[in-house]
């Protein structure tokens, strides 16, 4: 049986062979990882790497768009109490390539927090090197609890202090706390409040792998 | 110059693919065309009404005060396209002042439809951030999701309308 080999048929066969080879070729990450020590040092020195708890609370209340709050503590810690709207991505998981490649395709402002500071800063270094606009919550969850959830009652009850305190109380309530008086000078004795965990945060569905 | 036939489409495709690949290898970007047109529009608007360009955020991106719209990769690429097409046409004996159209309409009617079609395409190209060169070819080769979606929509729109405008072409 004579098989006529035309140019087109040859090209088609070549194409098929190439296709099969392609099937087994490894792809590379399109996410750019760049380690620029000078840029990182500059950000740290200028304080652009962190925000305060009060700034974060303002952003949440104002409904700042593109805001992504990541709680990098363990799932256990997260379930005991977390910041409103925060997503729990434990540190180990956050530093994985799949997470980095899937969570940050759309530009966002990322705020990282752990209980204190150190873990969040580690995560910050990695995210910045992966081109993600990240910030650390100064003082972490501990600071959040102290300043936002438990605003301290002012010692001297002057008018503007009272106003500020009441405003702080409503903010605290917004974030799920019953408020606690740190320094009680008046006769009222509110019962010790329980730190109510923040409203169930939306569990972000990790977009399909990669 | 004697008029020659066009080359085989598969050969043309491979050559075009190689040019596209070369573009990525050399400049890190693919081909494009509609962007250059937009720059030209903004340049004219800059000349006539710079204030208007500055006050419109979409236009300002291309040509606000201090930005030269012609300072752009695509503009030079398009100049090359015109030069290359001219040379190819010259060698192929296909430089001829004519209007391509279907037999049922006149040249003038074709011109009117060309303006209408062009306007629609131009509008759509800005909305989709590119035309067939930038989106279908370049975005297609890099396997960008949105580009494939747009490319399929271009074909869908064209095939869908074709029957209703067949008088123009066949």
């Amino acid at each position: 049986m004579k098989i006529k080999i035309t140019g087109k048929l040859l090209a088609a066969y070549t194409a098929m062979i190439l296709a099969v080879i392609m099937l087994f070729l490894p792809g590379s990450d399109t996410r750019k990882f760049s380690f620029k020590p000078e840029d990182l040092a500059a950000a740290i020195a200028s304080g652009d790497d962190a925000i305060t708890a009060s700034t974060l609370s303002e952003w949440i209340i104002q409904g700042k768009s593109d805001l992504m709050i990541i709680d990098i503590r363990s799932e256990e810690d997260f379930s005991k109490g977390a910041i409103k709207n925060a997503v729990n991505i434990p540190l180990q998981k956050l530093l994985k390539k799949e997470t980095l490649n899937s969570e940050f395709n759309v530009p966002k402002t990322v705020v990282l927090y752990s209980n204190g500071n150190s873990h969040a800063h580690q995560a910050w270094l990695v995210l910045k090197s992966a081109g993600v606009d990240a910030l650390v919550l100064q003082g972490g969850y501990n600071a959040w609890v102290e300043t936002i959830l438990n605003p301290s009652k002012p010692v001297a009850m002057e008018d503007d202090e009272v106003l500020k305190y009441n405003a702080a109380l409503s903010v605290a309530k917004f974030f799920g706390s019953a408020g606690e008086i740190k320094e009680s000078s008046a006769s009222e004795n509110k019962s010790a409040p329980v730190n109510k965990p923040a409203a169930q945060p939306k569990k972000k569905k990790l977009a399909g792998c990669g | 110059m004697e008029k020659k036939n066009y080359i085989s489409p598969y050969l043309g495709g491979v050559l075009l693919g190689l040019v596209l690949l070369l573009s990525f290898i050399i400049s890190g970007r693919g081909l494009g065309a509609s962007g250059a047109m937009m720059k030209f529009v903004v340049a004219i608007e800059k000349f006539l009404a710079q204030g208007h360009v500055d006050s419109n955020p979409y236009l300002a991106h291309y040509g606000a005060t201090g930005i030269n719209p012609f300072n752009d990769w695509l503009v030079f690429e398009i100049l090359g396209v015109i030069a290359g097409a001219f040379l190819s046409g010259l060698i192929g004996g296909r430089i001829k002042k004519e209007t391509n159209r279907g037999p049922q309409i006149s040249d003038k009617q074709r011109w009117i439809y060309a303006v209408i079609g062009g306007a629609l395409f131009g509008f759509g190209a800005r909305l989709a951030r590119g035309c067939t060169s930038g989106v279908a070819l370049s975005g297609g080769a890099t396997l960008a999701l949105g580009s494939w979606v747009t490319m399929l929509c271009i074909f869908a729109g064209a095939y869908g309308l074709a029957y209703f405008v067949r008088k123009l072409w066949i």
Partner: protein
Amino acid sequence: MFAPIAVLNDWSNGINYIFAFIIGIGFGWVLESSGFGNSKKLAWQFYFRDLTVFKVMFTAIVTAMTGLIFIDAFGWIDMSSILINETYLWSGAAGGLIMGIGFAIGGYCPGTSFTGFATLKVDSYFYIFGALLGMFVYGEVAPFIEPFYGGKYSGYMGTVTLQKFFGVSAGVVGFVIMIIALAGFFGAEWIEKKNGNIVKS
């Protein structure tokens, strides 16, 4: 890793633009040689008489795509420095449909209209004029449709490739597309044999 050459060697604008011009020459040359300056030939795609556009486009896409996948696998190119179009689902789809309608009526797309322009096709002059007009109109309308163009209703997904979307490697996507393209070419040959009326020059 030597590519992209301009990025890795930090070329100035001047050198970049020279190469843009050279690449453009290649682009325009191939377009014209394949007959893309002829609006009737282009439009006859949609009547299944001349499927050159489909063949050229998909051969080109597959060629470049395969090339990128291979040189990426060899480690010769830094894919993260390549400009990959971002995905705006809704505005992209709407724009695509409008472009398709414009193509069927106007018979050109911008790249091919410049090809026609270079070879004195009078209808291309009018097309280019129309396209500039359409873009002008868009510029005026743009601020009002911003939520659809790039805002909440744009379907913005960032830079997403097909492989990322389906969670496979680029090579797998390349394989599938190659198979689809080959099937498409066989189909196109069949259609042209039955119904074809190819514009030869």
